C-alpha cells in the first residue's frame, strides 16, 4: 500500500506567540535578579541641644592619620582605642563596671573632626563603631557657622 506524503506542513513558529515568549523571558530575568539587601549600621543621631552639659563629656578627635585618634587630647593607637576608651570612661566614672552599665551621662562620648576636615569617612565610621561597641553613647559635634558683626 502506498501512503501519500503530506506536503502542507506548518514549518514556521506562530508569530503570535513571540510576544508572550518575550514577556515571559523578561519576567524570568527580573525574578532572577538577586535582590541583595544593604548592609550597614544604624546610628542614633542625637538632637542638637543648645544647653551646655555641666560635666564635660569625653572627646574623640578623628584626624586624617589612619593609625591613631586623639582621646581627650592624648594620642592613642587605633587598635588600642577601645581599651583606652573603656579605661578612660571607667576612670572618669570611678567605677570598674562595664561601660554599658555606667550612668548614661558618664558614657557620653563626643566624636568630632574639628579643623581636620580632611578626615576620611572610612576612618570616622570605624571610630564611631568602636565607640558604640564599647557601650558608650555617641554624640556628634559639628562646627557651627557663626556670623559676627564687626560694626
Amino acid at each position, binding site marked *: 500500500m502506498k501512503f501519500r506524503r503530506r506536503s502542507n506542513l506548518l514549518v514556521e513558529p506562530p508569530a503570535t506567540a513571540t510576544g508572550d*515568549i518575550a*514577556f515571559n523571558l523578561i519576567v524570568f530575568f527580573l525574578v532572577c535578579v538577586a535582590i541583595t539587601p544593604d*548592609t*550597614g549600621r544604624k546610628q542614633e543621631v542625637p538632637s*542638637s541641644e543648645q544647653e551646655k552639659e555641666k560635666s564635660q563629656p569625653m572627646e574623640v578627635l578623628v584626624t586624617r592619620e589612619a593609625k591613631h585618634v586623639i582621646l581627650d587630647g592624648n594620642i592613642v593607637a587605633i587598635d588600642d582605642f577601645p581599651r583606652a576608651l573603656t579605661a578612660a570612661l571607667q576612670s572618669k566614672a570611678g567605677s570598674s563596671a562595664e561601660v554599658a552599665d555606667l550612668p548614661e551621662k558618664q558614657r557620653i562620648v563626643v566624636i568630632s*573632626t574639628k579643623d581636620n576636615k580632611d578626615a576620611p569617612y572610612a576612618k570616622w565610621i570605624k571610630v564611631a563603631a568602636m565607640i558604640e561597641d564599647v557601650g558608650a553613647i555617641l554624640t556628634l559635634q559639628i562646627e557651627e557657622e557663626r556670623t559676627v558683626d564687626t560694626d
Partner: protein
Amino acid sequence: MKITRKHVKADVPSVAMGDIAFLLLIFFVILSRAEDDTHLRWTPANLPKVENLGNAAVSVVINDESKVFLNGAQIGMGQLAEQIEARLAGFPVGDRKVRLKVHDNATAQYFEPVIEAISQAGGELEHVLQLRSDE
C-alpha cells in the same frame, strides 16, 4: 450595474501585541527606577561587623566626586534637610529611615553636614557599609 462592496479585514494585528507589551514593560521599569541611585559611583567603607538593613524611605549618597544625591538626584547642601523632611512627612517614628551611602574617601567636610541635615530633618540614620572579609 451592481457594484459589490469590498470587504476589508480590520483586525488588530496580533503579532504586534508582544511588542506593545514589551514597550509597556520597559516604560514601567524606567518609571520605577527614576528615583534609583544604582547609577551612582561610590565605594562603601568596611567594618568587621555589619547588619542587614531593611527598607528606607530616603537614600542619600555622597559619591566618589563628593557630590550629594537625594534619592538619585543631585542636590545642594542648603536644600538637603528641607527635602529630607518633606519626603519623611507622614512617616511615623521607626519608619523615618534615611540610608546614607558615603564614598569611603569622602572627607568630613562633606559627610558631616549631611549627617547634620539628616538629624535636623528627624531622620533615623543608617550607614550603608560593607563587611570586611579579612577579619
